[in-house]
């Protein structure tokens, strides 16, 4: 019973002190290379993928994944994305079409105009009535951490929604809970792209960068700002220059709101408010939140060599980077009136007095070209794509590429995917799948048809990774130890049985596609030879009863073998 702890301790001690990276010198055979590339660059192989990569050649296939514009997209994906219209709207449109309760309240009190579109207007009126009835019935009790709510009710709701056709389902959600449309659309789109998309590495990168520049959906206005954040700030830049990606996030209303920079103003630059007496009492000034996370989490890393003084100086540079009317879907604006005009010194570099918006742009230049950033980003990528403790030699090369190409993300990825360390025994099956990877890979391996992805998102949350709902700016970790624990393991096994047995609403597995023996089903879903211990356990258990293909498949998907990638 103690063995696990000792092993864990030993692994950690080794990781901290050992310099033995010899496993990363040992090459893989051809079959392993194909499987490894698929496991790391995609959300898990689908039937036929191994053969397709073999035919094309691993090197060429990897190169293609690095250039997603060269890959034709899957029509099944386009079909599923089509109804998710909130993802194509501006925040302002979203607020009008699918208003959150605060806006409905404001409209019902006459503080905001009702929407012009008759359908949206009817929705608001319906909601206003509901709101009143609710307020009369009881107080406003709500669980902010999103863990409450009746699970039975949730399950029934998902069952009902899953059995409706897409048009009807959309109307049901929009009429009853308009503020849910956008979160639903976001979750569905993410899962459909991961499950059906052909541009798999691009999708992995979108997940990586969103997580790196994490924004929490349930923080106030981010509820409506988050969709354009992912669409316009993250997705177009996943393979671009890091500087461009960094600036896109720095200027995005979602980030400005999430890390409070929109509220940060120079303490010396408050215009007299002669008329608004009640506001005059509110002293406004600097807010350090974004400046700190920008250096700690987005660029240099916590040990990247900045001080508390640098944080204040960076915050001063960013004063005036704000948003117009965030709750109504406002846009980024630079407000020179509240900008700190004094001289600043950031990491030893002088930013002269009298500057404006360009002060912060200079900060982004300094940070994106800092050697700590090259190292920090390279390390984070290697931890996600290679192993929890990647060899320093590889990190050196990646960081050098980062530096030499002025932060070209595609070039850094290419350096990593071209390396012997990537295709090595040290990396092969070294990572435990994250909840998102586990669930999507199971759906892909079984070739399940998904027509409503929200129940899958609910499962991912149960495994510990609620999508778009990481409250802290750190994002989710990628280390194995973070995802292996009893609650998560049980949830993984339960999901595996449920999916194979068609008990996950909205997803359909065709049991007829499964092979006819335990070994064959295992090979079919794992894409390699299963462990002897896994086969023995299944065979022993099934010796006593009639094995159904669905049960065998569920057991394989819940096996230790399937948890790795």
């Amino acid at each position, binding site marked *: *019973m*103690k*063995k*696990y*702890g*000792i092993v*864990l*301790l030993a*692994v*950690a001690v080794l990781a*901290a002190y050992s310099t033995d990276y010899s496993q990363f010198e040992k090459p893989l055979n051809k079959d392993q290379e194909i499987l490894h590339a698929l496991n790391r660059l995609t959300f898990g192989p689908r039937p036929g993928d191994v053969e397709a990569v073999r035919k094309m050649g691993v090197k060429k296939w990897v190169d293609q994944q690095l250039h997603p514009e060269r890959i034709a997209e899957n029509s099944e994906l386009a079909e599923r994305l089509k109804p998710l219209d909130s993802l194509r709207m501006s925040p302002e449109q979203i607020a009008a079409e699918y208003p959150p309760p605060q806006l409905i309240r404001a409209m019902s009190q006459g503080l905001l105009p009702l929407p012009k579109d008759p359908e949206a207007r009817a929705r608001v009126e319906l909601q206003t009535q509901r709101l009143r009835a609710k307020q009369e019935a009881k107080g406003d009790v709500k*669980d*902010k*951490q999103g863990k*409450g709510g009746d699970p039975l009710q949730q399950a029934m709701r998902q069952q009902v929604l899953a059995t409706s056709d897409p048009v009807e389902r959309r109307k049901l959600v929009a009429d009853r809970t308009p503020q849910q449309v956008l979160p639903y659309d976001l979750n569905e789109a993410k899962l459909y792209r991961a499950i059906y998309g052909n541009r798999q590495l691009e999708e992995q990168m979108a997940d990586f960068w969103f997580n790196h520049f994490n924004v929490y959906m349930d923080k106030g206005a981010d509820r409506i700002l988050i969709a354009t954040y992912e669409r316009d700030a993250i997705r177009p830049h996943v393979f671009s220059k890091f500087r461009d990606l960094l600036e896109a996030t720095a200027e995005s209303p979602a980030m400005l709101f999430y890390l*409070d920079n929109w*509220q*940060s103003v120079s*303490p010396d630059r408050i215009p007299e408010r002669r008329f608004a007496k009640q506001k005059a009492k*509110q*002293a406004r*000034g600097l*807010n*350090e*939140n974004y400046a*700190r996370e920008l250096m700690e*989490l987005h660029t240099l890393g*916590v040990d990247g060599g900045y001080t*508390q003084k640098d944080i204040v100086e960076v915050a001063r540079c960013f004063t005036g980077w704000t948003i117009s009317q965030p709750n109504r879907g406002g846009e980024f604006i630079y407000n020179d009136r509240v900008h700190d005009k004094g001289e600043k010194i950031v990491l030893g570099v002088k930013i002269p007095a009298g500057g404006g918006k360009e002060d912060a742009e200079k900060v982004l230049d300094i940070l994106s070209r800092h050697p700590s950033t090259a190292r920090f980003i390279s390390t984070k990528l290697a931890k996600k794509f290679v192993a929890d403790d990647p060899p320093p030699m590889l990190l050196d090369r990646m960081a050098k590429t980062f530096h030499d190409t002025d932060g070209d993300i595609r070039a850094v990825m290419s350096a990593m995917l071209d390396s012997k360390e990537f295709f090595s025994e040290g990396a092969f099956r070294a990572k*435990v799948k994250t909840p998102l990877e586990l669930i999507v890979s199971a759906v892909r391996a079984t070739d399940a048809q998904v027509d409503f992805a929200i129940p899958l998102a609910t499962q991912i949350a*149960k*495994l*510990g990774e609620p999508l778009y709902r990481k*409250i*802290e700016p*750190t994002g989710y970790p990628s280390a*194995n130890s973070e995802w*292996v*624990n*009893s*609650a*998560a*393991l*049980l949830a993984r*096994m*339960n999901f595996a*049985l*449920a999916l194979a047995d068609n008990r996950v609403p909205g997803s359909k597995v065709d049991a007829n596609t499964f092979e006819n023996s335990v070994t064959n089903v295992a090979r079919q879903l794992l894409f390699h030879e299963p462990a002897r*211990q*896994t086969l*023995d*356990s*299944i065979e*022993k*258990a099934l010796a006593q009863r009639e094995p159904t293909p669905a049960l065998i498949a*569920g057991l394989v998907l819940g*096996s*230790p073998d399937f*948890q*790795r990638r």
Partner: protein
Amino acid sequence: MTSRRLFLKSSALGMFGVGTAPAWLSRALYAADAPSPRKKILVAIFQRGAVDGLNMVVPFGEKQYYALRPNLAIPKPDRTENSAVDLDGFFGLHPALAPLKPIYDAGHLAIVHAVGSPDPTRSHFDAQDYMESGTPGRKATADGWLNRALPSQKDSSPVRAVSLGTTLPRAMRGQNEAVAIANLNDFQIRDTRGAGTFESMYENTLDQVLNGAGRETFEAVKLMQSIQKQPYAPAGDVQYPNSALGQDLMQIARLIKSDVGLEVAFAEMRGWDTHFNEVGARPTQGQLANLLGQFGSALAAFYQDLGDKMADVSVVTMSEFGRTARENGSRGTDHGHANVMFAFGGGIRGGKVLGEWPGLEPEQLYEQRDLQLTTDFRDVLGELAVRHLGNAQVASVFPGYEQPKYRGIVRG
């Protein structure tokens, strides 16, 4: 009580068959029959995001507090809900924490102010990591203080260390087995055809990481089955709030009352990072007030639900660092230094605010901006590990911390 225990016994032992039940199980089930030294239990609650300790326990006797926080300061006690709840003429509770006042008055709640980690970091992630590893400034520590705090013993229960949630926190990881439980009723393989097979797979796999976690899981699952058969009803008219922390504490209470061998438990509450609009129209309203309201009502419900059982239970609360003494430009506070901790339970010498108060005058502040530290968080946690849990080796719980200064929060 007798019939429930008997029921638990027969159903739990039945799963193993006669004579094959592991020692921890029979000990756990028979513990109450033969009078033996009762197990002490420590529940640790982490307020992630750095709670504003200066508004949680208000130094209303300090003039400077009001000077530094023109918009945020909680008014001096005036017996209304818009003012601090007087504790000792100098400190007062945030009014949203009023449900804890009776525990303080009963002498069961001790408050330590100006406490925290001596490490200067203002990074949430690093500070939480240090507080959970119990080794400020040292990143290489592999395990967590709460795991190390478990006294060594043979045949311990598989659920002696439980954390509520879908991930196992840093504080709980390490050599002693520890399980994460999101929900007691869900802690099972729902399809009985799969349960045994999965158990065998994970028991035999050569994958060392999954093998260990898998074993621990299935041992705990068996024990949970006896609990899952009976719905839980809190004592009397106790109502846990429907918040995540409320529900987690209810599950911890359920584990404690089931006598399954729980020794340490961990729960957390998030969302304390109040840079913006920490207060609403009044300083006693708004974001922080809502959070503290959830926090206080959950702790109070737990205390009432456990009743006499609280004699063996201590609860301790912590947060990675405090917040700036001065309010910031957006009706909030930024990352600071020292903070406040609560310890409550039947064995706690409470009814007092402990620790030297460093003051809030400019020259008294840490780096001219934050509350100065006068008590190391390891003094509080170490005392609980040694004097409450009975772990004789404080040096192994907090390696490198040789001379702790206990504050006398555990009754001798």
